[in-house]
């Protein structure tokens, strides 16, 4: 059995690499994008805010799997020029989807900051930008850390969805091995790898939360 596991490992590690790549690119793009769009969402421009609200509603109201399939299979039907390889399709679908979640998380954090904080900044003469940048966002960030952590862990597992568009990430590699060898160990190994990944995320989240624990 040890031999079998050792034989599985190279392919599974390669799959894990792909999983991590999609995870990392999605996070690196959608976190800042989510923050940016959330600022527009709470801006005084009603039209922009409404458009973003609708965007978030669609992205959070339909399955990520559906969105993924739409980008990969649906768009080329609309116009062949929209045909893309699987990997960029996965990134587009994931970034669009996760940005919507992050927008809502950041919005909640920003709106949770007490009015008194804004008034204090206002009477002291801080501009709207300074107030957002120096007073609201640092406090909002601390408040949204638990929700962000949840979302990040969900993303680790959501990466498995890209297996449906033939990307060789962890789950797909696992399934191929299990079907080929008619053995179930690969599933266990995949489960352990996902657990390890989410465990690392949880620890990192704890570290960041501790960093912000110096004030209440």
């Amino acid at each position: 059995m040890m031999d079998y596991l050792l034989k599985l490992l190279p392919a599974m590690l390669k799959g894990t690499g792909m999983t991590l790549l999609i995870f990392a690119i999605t996070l690196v793009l959608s976190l800042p994008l989510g923050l940016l769009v959330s600022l527009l969402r709470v801006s005084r421009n009603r039209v922009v805010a409404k458009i973003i609200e609708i965007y978030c509603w669609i992205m959070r109201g339909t399955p990520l799997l559906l969105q993924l399939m739409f980008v990969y299979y649906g768009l080329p039907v609309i116009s062949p020029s929209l045909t893309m390889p699987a990997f960029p399709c996965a990134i587009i679908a994931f970034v669009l989807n996760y940005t919507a979640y992050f927008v809502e998380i950041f919005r909640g954090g920003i709106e949770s900051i007490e009015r008194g904080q804004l008034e204090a900044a206002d009477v002291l003469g801080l501009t709207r930008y300074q107030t957002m940048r120096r007073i609201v966002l640092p406090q909002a960030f601390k408040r949204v850390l638990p929700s962000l952590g949840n979302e990040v862990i969900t993303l680790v597992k959501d990466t498995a969805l890209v297996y449906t568009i033939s990307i060789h990430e962890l789950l797909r590699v696992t399934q191929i091995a299990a079907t080929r060898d008619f053995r179930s160990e690969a599933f266990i190994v995949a489960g352990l790898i996902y657990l390890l990944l989410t465990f690392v995320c949880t620890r990192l989240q704890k570290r960041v939360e501790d960093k912000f624990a110096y004030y209440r």
Partner: protein
Amino acid sequence: MILRAENIEKSFGELKVLKGVSLSVSKGDVVAIIGPSGSGKSTLLRCINRLEDIEGGSIYIDGKPMVTTEPGKKPVYAPERELKALRRRLGMVFQSFNLFPHKNVLQNIIEAPTQVKKIPKAEAEKRAMELLAKVELADKARAYPCELSGGQQQRVAIARALAMDPEVLCFDEPTSALDPQLTGEVLRVMQKLAADGMTMLVVTHEMGFARNVANHVVFMNDGVIVEQGTPKEVLEQSGNPRLRAFLGMARQKE
């Protein structure tokens, strides 16, 4: 006249909170605004600081119009830059302190001087330490607001407001959120400021402060100023039945 408010009107929905209130503050004045809850005294202060937009009337700071209303028209505020410059001449201390919880005491105080006035950090910190000494909290410069008592937080808030060198410092019920034993330390600091000649406009429930520190007392009820004058005139000699009833209740609480 450093501050003049004329015929201020303000409603919240159907409820008319200020029904034409006029108030003048001269340099060095300590004005106490007293009155029952819902009389509009906090709203008046918030209108003067432009935390609320007024619906009628005019406000002048040192003779310069911050907002004016032509008869039969809507109020017109000064252009953005001018308004900002005028508002900067006012300071505000809130009932709930509103310190920035993610910044320590020193950072709270230097935030506006460094960001708004662009004063170099070292200079702002030096000044902040002087102000902290003044409010008797020099040893708490590195503490975070959550580590301080309510009374200490309010004294930091006073130092933070003073750091912008306001010409009039407004207090919105500065001791209402405090335990009785913490009220004294805040009032003592305010008394010291008054003695230093600071112009102050104080909405308060502390009759002792109105009596002993203020030189002018304003009694508001139901959106209008019912009585104003020296502490003696208002707190002792007035025969106004509303005022007498209010003072009677206040005395029972003390």
